[in-house]
């Protein structure tokens, strides 16, 4: 069933893609093929592949339970928050939170994960910024 759903989504996506491709504006510079043709071919391939998935689905994949899905959703939210926090708080502070959260969710004990966050953050800062000279996000504290 999952494959059928994915195939259905794939067909819709392909249709949307082909429709969008036909809307590409032609420029005054042209070549025999033009900018539309290749995207349309790709869309057709995708539609055909999706159709096969609908007609001949594989065995059901092992879907995670709600708890795991929730876990992943929460982690995505934390990562998004992290990208917005980077320019505001600076690399070191933002990374302590993000790395600490990740290691906590991957099974570290609370104190352990705080330590992990601090070590990972300062470790990366030392290796990549101080030693290798990579530019990292700067916050109000200058780190």
């Amino acid at each position, binding site marked *: 069933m999952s494959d059928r759903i994915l195939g259905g989504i794939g067909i819709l996506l392909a249709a949307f893609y082909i429709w969008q*491709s036909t809307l590409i504006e032609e420029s005054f510079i042209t070549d025999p093929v033009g900018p539309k043709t290749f995207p349309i071919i790709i869309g057709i391939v995708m539609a055909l592949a999706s159709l096969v998935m609908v007609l001949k689905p594989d065995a059901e994949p092992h879907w995670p339970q709600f708890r795991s899905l929730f876990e992943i959703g929460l982690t995505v939210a934390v990562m998004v928050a992290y990208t917005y926090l980077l320019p505001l708080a600076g690399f070191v502070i933002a990374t302590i939170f993000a*790395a600490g959260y990740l290691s906590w969710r991957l099974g570290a004990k609370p104190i352990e*994960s705080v330590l992990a966050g601090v070590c990972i953050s300062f470790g990366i800062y030392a290796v990549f910024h101080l030693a290798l000279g990579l530019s990292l996000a700067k916050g109000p504290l200058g780190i």
Partner: protein
Amino acid sequence: METLSHLADGFAVAFTLQNLALALLGCFLGTIIGALPGLGPSNGVAILIPVAFTLGLPATPALILLTSVYYGAMYGGRISSILINIPGDEPAMMTTLDGYPMARKGQAGEALAISGIASFVGSFLATWGLAFLAPQLVNVALLFGPAEYFALYFLAFATLGGVSSRNQAKAAFAAALGLGIAMIGVDGQTGVPRLAFGNVHLYEGIDFLIAIVGLFALSEVFVFLEERAAGTGLDSKSAVKLGRVVPPVAMLKETSGSMIRGTILGFLAGVLPGAGASLGSFMAYSMEKRLKDKNSTFGKGDPRGVAAPEAGNNAAAGGALVPMLALGVPGSGTTAVLLAMLLALNVTPGPLLFTQKPDIVWGLIAALFIGNVMLLALNLPMVSIFVRVLMIPTRFLMPIVAMVSFVGIYGISGSTFDLMVMIIFGVLGWILRKYDIPLVPVIMGVLLGNAMEVNLRRAMTISDGDWSILVGSPLAIALWLLGIAGFLFPIVAGRFFRPPQPIEDRVAEGD
């Protein structure tokens, strides 16, 4: 003996203090990356590309660093296969079959030594193969026009699915997805924006480095999170005792034939488009078993069952560099990632690279020879260091992987938008893996999509809009037929040629 004089020039390029230091660093990092379950050659190299790129290394040193990581990861994968029965990366899967039983019998040290030597034999001979075969392939590639290149790309996509997926429709879907993503952005030939939905960030297209890091590295973090939440994750397995890391001479003699046979098969599998190192080690092991398993000792700790697949996967790693360097068409996930790095450095592989920038090619090949010797030294006497690294639990390793991914992508552009795109690719990669849709065709599509379209349009401009030019030469027709055969063959006979499902799901994607 043109090759030898080129090679001598290459050694002159590689023998600078900086390049030697980078090769050593790469070998060391690579072995660690290969040994850690969850980090393999493709995602390991993937998170290091943006870093090498933002460090501003010139093309040759950057290439030396990252190919050393690639070779090192191929060596390192065996360590966790043997000691804890979890392959460090996908190609090392076959090594678990006899490596772990050897370790259980108290022969962990011997297994590590034999597999280390087998790795050396495989990659050393394969590097010679690369040095001699790649220039020959370049001579063929010089005959290619745009139409032939278009057919070659088709061949690459059609055969790629054959091995990496159990379902050709899904492989085709993955390729279309990647190609579709590559189309986003301003069209290079006519200057019109395509599929960007008016978003200025998308006008430049989606950077393939972001796609690669998201799909390969970040999705790994999600896989581990899911396992952890479901409680299926296996925590620290106790590693076995090492014993002596010196192989007995008798064992070396016994396995030398297996190493040579494994090397030849692995190299061939590596050169063929779409096969890659996993197939190389699989074929090497199956053939060895068929030939030598007279007392049914295979699977119970036969050293030949360790030597053959290790020689095979390392030889395949060298072989896979042949089409990548000579044609610009990668044959496996990791070489696709290496291609991404070359493109990021503004180096376009292919026949022109050999004629115009021979120092890059031959410097790289020389560096591979040097790296091999370094890896042998790192992997025999110093293997216990890497064994200790294996003890890092995933709850600390995976946050590091995630944070280094962010650091690398942030370093390229400093843009929040790029980081968001990376997260989206991370989630996409996780979903695709759940569906058993291979990630490598997606990456290849993103990487090669524009080149494929450019060649199509060039061919059509030459023929003034006549589509028959695509099958206008015997070479092109041969490439099309090979591609079609390569796509259909697995559907008919795939069962017999496919590596078995990974035993554990926590194997790094790609090879």
